[in-house]
Each structure stands twice: as structure tokens, then as C-alpha cells.
């Protein structure tokens, strides 16, 4: 069975189907269909309030969906929470550490809460980063606290890692380190990661898949490379042949309106874009792709499709 993004159900680590979640009148997720293939590192990108955190919280059984559902490694977390959570390592939005406990005590606690927790593995990861195990967690820097959170998540040896904007409060160096540790772990363990962020450049180099969430809906869900190759950017609003307009937004400098186009599958991106005299298209960066879809989702800029 084919799923969104070209993944098949047999290889899906995480599937959301018709997932809706409302908070009173505010719709956080609106019939979301999303598939995260096993072994992938998927970037879940969207502005603040797009529903990224809600989606991850539903996967963690912290929120109950109003309609539809999710399956984490084939298990519905709301119905079988223990079983689902055993398959998931979770890094919350803000590094949540116990102020009075040392780093080592965090690992001890994780081991006491999670039967399969590999404290040695987590300890090695922290050792590599030079984070003293006897240091109290409330004296760690933001980056170190985030690394502790990641080490705890990795120590569960879970097949799926859900990371809820872990980079948001980190400085550039700490972000890079975090991403590197994550990538090393995913590569060596063969696990799947869903990394949410509202900063595209943070996840560009780390992920092999992109899911754009805007206004509670999935705007795009495809491999990262495909997202780059099948989108072009022009200054004008006349569509290149065979291309579908996605959305328009203000370009860099805020003077020109840029339009993002999605090429028809199979089109050669090198030949497609020129549509008229003097008009040229350029390869869209990942940020452009995200901006285009978010603009379409928000209904801002020029709505061309």
C-alpha cells in the first residue's frame, strides 16, 4: 500500500492518518496524513503554531486526537501507551532536567523508569561531549542540557526518536553538535528520527526527508532531494510550462514577490522554468520551498493555484 511521500506501510515507522486535534475552537491539526519511513531522518518544519508540537505530543500519548490517529511502529499510542512509548525516544521542546540531580542521576532515573535503558551507551555519548557526569543538571549550559536530553532519549535504544524543536534555544555551535550526535546515533543504530523545527537551515543538512506543516495541515511530505529538485523560483507570476504554482512570498530584501513552482513529476528541472522573454527561474532553496508552502497555507502573498 502506497502512502504519502512514496513510503510503503511496511516500512513506515510513524503514520498519521486523518489526524485532527482541536483545542477548544483552535484547530491544531486538521486531517493530517503523514508517513515517516523507517530509517529516515525527517524534518518537520513549520512556523510557530503550525501543529508540530501537537503532532509529536499525540505520538507520545500526551494528547488525545479528536479524529484519526497515529501509529508508532504499528502501535496506537493512545490505546497501547506503554507498548508505543517503549519504541520511542523523546526529546522535549525545552531541555527538561531535574535541577537537584546530577547528570549521572538522570541516567539512573532513566534506567529505573525504562527497563531497556542503556545507561552505558548514554554515558559514552556524554563522555564524548565532555559533559561531567557528576555535574548538577541545573549548572549545565543550554547546549549541555539539550545533549543530556538527547543522551537520555538515545539511551532508550528506541527505534524512533521524536525531537520537539530541540534546537530552538541553542547557539549555532551547540546546534551543530546536537545535530552531529543525533546523526551519528541514527546512523549507527539504524533508528528513525522526526525532528521538528521552525528554522529550516537547522535541519537542512541533517535530514533526508521534509514534511512541511502549516495551519494544522501537511503542505508537503517528500524526500528532501525531491523537494529541492522539483521546485523552482521565479519573480513573475506566469507559470512555467507544466509547473504548478505553490505560493508567493516576498523575496530577500522584501522588494520582489517570488513565486514557488512545483514541476510535474518527471520534468527535467534544468529545462523547465523559462516561460517567457526575460523570465528565468532559479533552483529553489529549501527555505524557499518552505516559504512557498507556508505562504500558500496562510493565504498570504499571491495565491496562484
Amino acid at each position, binding site marked *: 500500500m502506497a502512502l504519502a511521500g512514496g513510503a510503503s506501510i511496511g516500512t513506515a515507522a510513524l503514520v498519521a492518518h486523518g489526524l485532527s486535534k482541536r483545542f477548544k475552537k483552535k484547530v491544531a491539526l486538521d486531517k493530517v496524513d503523514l508517513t515517516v519511513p523507517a530509517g529516515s531522518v525527517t524534518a518537520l518544519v513549520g512556523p510557530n503554531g503550525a501543529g508540530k508540537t501537537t503532532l509529536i505530543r499525540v505520538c*507520545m500519548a500526551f494528547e488525545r486526537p479528536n479524529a484519526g490517529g497515529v501509529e508508532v511502529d504499528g502501535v496506537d499510542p493512545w490505546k497501547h501507551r506503554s507498548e508505543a*512509548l517503549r519504541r520511542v*525516544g523523546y526529546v522535549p521542546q525545552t531541555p*527538561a532536567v*531535574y535541577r537537584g540531580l546530577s547528570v549521572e542521576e538522570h541516567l*539512573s532515573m532513566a534506567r529505573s523508569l*525504562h527497563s531497556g535503558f542503556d545507561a552505558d551507551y548514554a554515558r559514552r555519548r556524554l563522555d564524548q561531549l565532555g559533559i561531567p557526569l557528576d555535574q548538577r543538571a541545573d549548572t549545565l549550559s543550554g547546549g549541555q542540557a539539550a545533549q543530556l*536530553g538527547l543522551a537520555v532519549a538515545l539511551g532508550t535504544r528506541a527505534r524512533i526518536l521524536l525531537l520537539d524543536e530541540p534546537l530552538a534555544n541553542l547557539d549555532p555551535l551547540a546546534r551543530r553538535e546536537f545535530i552531529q550526535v543525533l546523526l551519528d546515533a541514527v546512523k549507527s543504530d539504524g533508528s528513525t528520527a522526526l525532528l521538528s523545527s521552525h528554522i529550516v537551515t537547522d535541519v537542512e543538512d541533517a535530514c533526508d526527508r521534509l514534511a512541511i506543516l502549516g495551519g494544522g495541515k501537511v503542505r508537503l511530505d517528500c524526500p528532501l532531494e525531491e523537494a529541492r529538485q522539483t521546485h523552482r523560483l521565479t519573480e513573475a507570476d506566469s507559470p512555467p510550462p507544466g509547473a504548478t504554482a505553490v505560493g508567493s512570498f516576498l523575496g530577500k530584501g522584501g522588494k520582489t514577490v517570488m513565486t514557488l513552482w512545483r514541476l510535474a513529476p518527471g520534468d527535467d528541472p534544468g529545462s523547465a522554468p523559462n516561460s517567457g522573454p526575460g523570465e528565468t527561474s532559479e533552483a529553489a532553496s529549501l527555505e524557499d520551498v518552505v516559504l512557498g508552502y507556508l505562504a500558500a497555507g496562510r493565504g498570504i502573498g499571491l495565491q496562484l493555484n
Partner: protein
Amino acid sequence: MLTRIWLTYKQHRFETIAIALVCLGLAAAALIEAYRLNSMNVPLKCLESWQGAYMVGPGQPPLDAATQRCNDMAQAFSNIKTGTDAGLVRMLLAFAPLLVGIVFGAPIVAREIETGTAPLSWALSGSRRRWLFSKVLAGVLLIVPLMLVVGLAADVFEAAQYPDLNVYASYIDYVSRGAILVFWALAAFAGTFALGTLLGRTMPALIVALVVCFFVRGSWEAGMNHFVLRPFAVQTSLEQSANYTPDSWYNDISLYQTVYMDGKPWDGDVNAWWMEHQQVQVSATPDASGFVPGGGEPVYVDPATNKPLAPSQVPTYVNFVIPGAWYWNVVVLESGLLLLGSLFCGVIAFVWVDRRRPY
């Protein structure tokens, strides 16, 4: 499990240390007060005969040296017993269990939710109830032995204050001493962590718990007497009551009085009956000043025939009491009720923790 219990203490180290210090300090204070009273070695007869500072009236002859010494000792004993130190200890003994329970119970879940550590723990532990159980167990393991120490010290203090009393057959201060303190603390603990789980905030949980716990504690004895113990009360006749020593009055919980006639409850107007049936007996002759000192035993007569009535035909006040000998039954009953309350609150917390959001 042991690791989690230990880490719970570390996580709440301020509360743990504060509670341990308060309990041990209070137990020590109660024992010191008891020692001060016991070390005076006041003979029981001095305490029994001493009637306060106004024993010698104006114009009366001075007391003999032995009686004076006896009274001085009793006075000194009374000064310690009613002094500020002992009063403070008594007050703290009444409220410490509530404070201990509230202080440890409020943050146990609520702080995790406030500081954002609940998602971390709940993500690691498949079962939130198991997570909560380990934290609650840590609280119970801390509170039970400490409050037991305080309760026993309070019993020693009580026995020192009333040397002629068996503290395990008397209801004086019985809610503020002994094993029941453990159950007060557990009830306050369970109620507060349930509130913390429901509200997800430490300070509101603490404030609501303070109000509720102090209201329950304040109205506990009246409520127990009125609703729980009343059906178990046994009757004591006025004659029996008259034989009671002052201390044996303290032993019982006197619940209510009613009037009996011919061995049955009687709801007539006693005063009107007396006015009608009582015949004043003047059994003593006037003294030098013309004062008639006493009237002797009252005699009740039938106004129609003017013949004396049999004792059973005279309205008699009957006391209904919970005898002091039932001390342990009452303590077990009230402790059981507090335990039931604790379990009820615990069930609410355990159900809610599984349903609530961790933020």
C-alpha cells in the same frame, strides 16, 4: 524502585530535610517537656489536692508546711504544663502532621508538571501510575516512621502532663498524639498530592490543601462525635457519673445527655416537673448569723397524694459516652477513616495522572 525512591528524596531534598528536622525537633521538644514534668516527681496526691492559687481564702489559717510544699510543687508542675513551651509543643503536635503531609504532597506531581520534567519521565516510563507509585511510596516511607516517632513522643508528653492517667484509656488530646498522627499526615499527603495532580500547580495545591486540611482537622472531633461515634455511645446514669473522679470524666468522650424516667427516655419538661414534685427539705438549723447552710437530699413527692415517689419515677439525667476503655477501638476506627480518605484521594490521583497532560 529503590533508585526512584532515593531520587525522589534528592529531587525534593528541601522538603525531605525540612520534614525530617521538624518531626525530629518536635519529638525532641515533646520529650524534653515530658522530662521537665517527670523530673519534678510531684506526688500524685499533691496534684489531686492542689486546687490552684486560690486555695487559701482570706481569713483562713495558713497551710501547714507539708501541704504548702505539696502545693508549691503542684504549682511549679502546673506552670510548666501551662507554660508557653508546652503550649507551643501541644499546638505543633496538633498541626504538624498536616503540615508534613501538605509540604511533601504538594510538589510531588505538580512541580514536575510546572518545571516540564513530567514529559521526560512519562515518556521514559510506559506506566505513569508506576511512576507515581514510586513517588508516593517515597512519601509514605518518609512520613510513616517520622510521624510514628512524633506520635509516641506525644504520648510520653501526654502521660507526663497527666501522671494519674492511662493515656491509652483516655481521650484527652487523643487526636494529637499516638499512632493516629501517622494517619493524619498520610491523609494530608494523599489529599495534597491528589490536588497537585489535578491542578498541576504547586502553590495553588498547597493553599487549597491548607484550607481543606485545617477545616477538616478543626471540625474532626465534633464531626466524629456527632456522626460516627454517636450510635456506639453507651449510657451512664447520673449516679454512675457522680462516682467519677475528675480524671475519669476526662477519660470518656461525653457525647450527649438525655432524661430517663422509669428506665426509658423521657422528653418532659424537667424544670416544670421539679417545680411540681420537689419538696424542699430543711435539714439543718440556722447558724449564728441566721443562715441555713443546707437543705439535705431533695425529696420528690406526688402532689396529689403527697407521698414520696420511688427513685425510678423521678426523671434522671443519663449520659451517653464512649468509654475510655474503648480508646484503641476509637483510634483504630478514626485511623481507618483517615486511611480510607487517603486511599480515596490516592485513587483520584492515580486515575487522573493517567489522563492528564504532562504540562
